[in-house]
């Protein structure tokens, strides 16, 4: 007969505060004795080394053959207790961790009820563990190449770290150049480094690194496979430029007669040509033809670029190219988009010309931007005398996004400093709370305070152009309550900058689905653990870095890029990874060859053996969902770890108490 040990964790008071752990342990030892429970113990922290030693000692001394731990979610500590069993010589898969914290003590308040439910949960675990099998983890090899999606600072950092370690990286970017949002900025807080000065060397490094294959103007279409062995289909959109011939000399965009408003890089503040690179330091230097705006594609004549190209690199008939790459790990660093300020009509964006978004202002400040770095009103010549910066536009607002966009306070301070420095104008920061954590940020805040920027604590109610007094004539008026003083104010301004929220990419959901990830309610990708595993995801082999995980500033994005790279490198270096042996397999003698299961597998793991007339399952392709197991009318398919016997036993165990509660007369 099996010998089972039951261990109930207090988790400090997290569990013991709501569940009578001692009663549960004693009950299991007494009431489940006939099921093989030989010992029931409770301990303050089962996951501590002393707690684990308790299990190890019992395995050795009492000869336990199964272990049930009632503690937290298996997503947190299943591995901890399996490893403890393994150390004591017990197959790790003969251990069952049942959750009485997330599923009992943290969600219930009545102690008697919670204790009774904990007993039921333990009983379910005991019945289930009796049907566990000794298993060996599946070992799969790790392909040494890595795919990084998104060429912003987080993606660039991840790609460089991996490439520097000596492994190949495919860096995919959907715009014509890498650089991301950081390339659009002028200065970076709190040091006021010029963004281009610190970013462009990294871009060049990524562009010339022998281990990095840049795939710009490209998008991932499909991802197949699993950790270590992904096969990724990438669409290289046609640039209509032969990159092997193009030297990036720039004659084509100089000669192109068609000017187009650049809504992407210049945020609508400047223009580009129909054949273009988004900015002067673009990496790679090859241009793309914007087919929707190119005169040749519209009217059938022009071809100025082709005529002047010294290397005959223009190819109007180029078609999209589909390539497939095999990689072992994937880093997603697809970043963010900014909140559409039109949605807050009270701020007049789109109607009042001198109301700008933060990205538009960044472009205006940038020395290589549309005004060569001069801060000017929309008339293109006059400098503002009073500038208002509105914080939290679309963030910390139940109507739009409840979260804090993290960067706006520091960005607002940076703008205040730049306006001061370049125009001498009065600057008003309208904030809800000033948030300046991290190194050097608070000091920067003090500096801007000393420069004489006005700080008004209050959410701006409205920006309008309806004057009530002669001073307000021709001005924008910010209607705001200074909540520290408790007075309503009308502040006349020449320019208003809206610190717009960072939002998930509009297609974040589709991207998540393509890579098998999930999004939070806000739309950011969900990490494996918010504190202890911020760059891993629930899908093994897929890592996330930068703003795709949530709003963050440049230092944090770089740190995550490097962290994701370290994670990928660890796996590449280990050459193989152990996977949960949760797989389906066919018991041939039971298979009638009915083929009901054949159409159910989305991973093509199920095939039919025509000669033997039985179904076969390819363990390497099987992902372990168990849909075929549930469908087989003959019960010929078993799913390790989640067999029918295990589930049936767990149901019986969970319901033991209420059946036992009121014995039925025979």
């Amino acid at each position, binding site marked *: 007969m099996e010998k089972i040990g039951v261990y109930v964790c207090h988790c400090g008071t997290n569990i013991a505060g709501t569940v009578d752990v001692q009663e549960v342990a004693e009950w299991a030892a007494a009431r489940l004795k006939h099921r093989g429970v030989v010992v029931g113990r409770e301990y303050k922290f089962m996951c501590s080394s002393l707690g684990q030693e308790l299990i190890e000692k019992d395995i050795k001394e009492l000869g336990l053959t199964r272990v049930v731990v009632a503690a937290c979610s298996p997503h947190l500590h299943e591995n901890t207790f399996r490893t403890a069993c393994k150390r004591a010589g017990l197959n790790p898969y003969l251990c069952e961790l049942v959750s009485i914290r997330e599923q009992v003590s943290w969600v219930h308040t009545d102690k008697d009820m919670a204790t009774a439910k904990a007993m039921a949960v333990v009983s379910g675990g005991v019945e289930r563990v009796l049907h566990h099998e000794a298993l060996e983890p599946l070992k799969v090899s790790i392909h040494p190449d890595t795919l990084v999606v998104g060429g912003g600072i987080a993606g660039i950092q991840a790609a460089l770290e991996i490439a520097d370690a000596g492994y190949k990286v495919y860096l995919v970017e959907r715009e014509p150049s890498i650089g991301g949002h950081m390339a659009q900025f002028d200065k970076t807080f709190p040091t006021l480094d010029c963004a281009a000065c610190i970013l462009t060397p990294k871009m060049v490094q990524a562009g010339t690194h022998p281990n990095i294959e840049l795939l710009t103007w490209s998008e991932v279409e499909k991802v197949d496979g699993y950790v270590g062995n992904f096969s990724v289909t990438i669409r290289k959109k046609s640039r209509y430029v032969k990159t092997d011939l193009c030297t990036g000399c720039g004659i084509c965009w100089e000669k192109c007669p068609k000017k187009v408003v650049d809504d992407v890089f210049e945020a609508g503040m400047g223009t580009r040509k129909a054949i273009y690179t988004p900015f002067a330091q673009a990496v790679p230097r090859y241009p793309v033809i914007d087919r929707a705006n190119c005169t040749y594609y519209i009217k059938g004549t022009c071809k100025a670029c082709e005529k002047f190209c010294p290397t005959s690199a223009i190819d109007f008939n180029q078609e999209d190219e589909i390539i497939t790459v095999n990689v072992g790990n994937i880093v997603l660093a697809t970043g963010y988009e900014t909140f559409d300020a039109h949605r807050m009509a009270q701020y007049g964006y789109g109607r009042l010309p001198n109301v700008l978004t933060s990205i538009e202002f960044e472009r205006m400040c940038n020395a290589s931007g549309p005004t060569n770095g001069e801060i000017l009103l929309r008339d293109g010549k006059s400098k503002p005398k009073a500038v208002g910066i509105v914080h939290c536009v679309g963030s910390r607002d139940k109507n739009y996004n409840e979260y804090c966009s993290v960067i706006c306070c520091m960005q607002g301070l940076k703008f205040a400093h730049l306006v001061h420095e370049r125009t001498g104008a009065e600057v008003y920061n309208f904030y809800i709370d000033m948030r300046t954590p991290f190194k050097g940020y608070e000091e920067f805040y003090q500096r801007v305070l000393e420069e004489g920027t006005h700080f008004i604590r209050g959410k701006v109610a409205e920006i309008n152009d309806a004057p009530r007094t002669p001073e307000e004539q021709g001005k924008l008026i910010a209607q705001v309550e200074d909540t520290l003083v408790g007075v309503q104010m009308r502040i006349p301004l020449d320019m208003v900058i809206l610190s717009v929220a960072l939002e998930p990419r509009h297609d974040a959901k589709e991207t998540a689905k393509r890579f098998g990830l999930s999004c939070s309610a806000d739309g950011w990708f969900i990490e494996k653990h918010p504190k202890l595993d911020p760059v891993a995801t629930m899908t093994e082999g897929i890592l996330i870095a930068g703003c795709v995980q949530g709003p963050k500033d440049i230092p944090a994005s770089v740190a995550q890029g490097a962290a994701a790279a370290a994670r990928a490198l660890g796996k590449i270096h280990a050459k193989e990874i152990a996977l949960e042996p949760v797989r389906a397999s066919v018991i041939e003698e039971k298979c009638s060859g009915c083929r009901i299961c054949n159409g159910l597998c989305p991973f093509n793991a199920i095939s039919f053996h025509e000669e033997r007339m039985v179904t076969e399952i390819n363990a390497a392709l099987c992902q372990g969902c168990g*849909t075929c197991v549930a469908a087989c009318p003959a019960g010929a398919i078993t799913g390790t770890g*989640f067999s029918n016997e295990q589930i049936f036993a767990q149901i019986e165990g969970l319901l033991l108490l209420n059946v036992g509660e009121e014995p039925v007369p025979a």
Partner: protein
Amino acid sequence: MNNNETFDPVIIGFTCNWCSYRAADLAGTSRTKYPHNIRLIRLMCSGRLDPTFVFKALANGADGVMITGCHPGECHYLEQNYKALRRFHLLRRTLKGLGVEPERVKLVWASAAEGKKFATEVGSFVEEIRALGPLNWYRSNGRSPDDSGPTSHEPAPDLKEVPA
């Protein structure tokens, strides 16, 4: 146990490892309270749900079964939750044929981010089952719980009365 006000139903919940189980975890970590009546079983996917699991649960004393999975289009295994959906409809029809209220089985989609939704759904389902009253299937089957498998072994003599 005789009238619906004091009736404390027992519900078995099947959860998907990737979404609803994590929603339950999230409800826990954010301390969102819900009734104690539900006991969860983790599956890798709602597609693993064999309808016999539901019958087994009802036959062994559960008053209701909640099946949970990823939202349509968000299945971790691409499309297996649609198979769960098909089975769910078939299951309800079969239950009706057997004279059991089909409302005793409920299908809920909950993503890993929806801890609150998970808790709310449990709360409302408990009330729905409470309104339906106890199922007592194992009794009406004329079966004693003591001949239904592992639990049949002699119970310990000092068996304590524990509330469900």
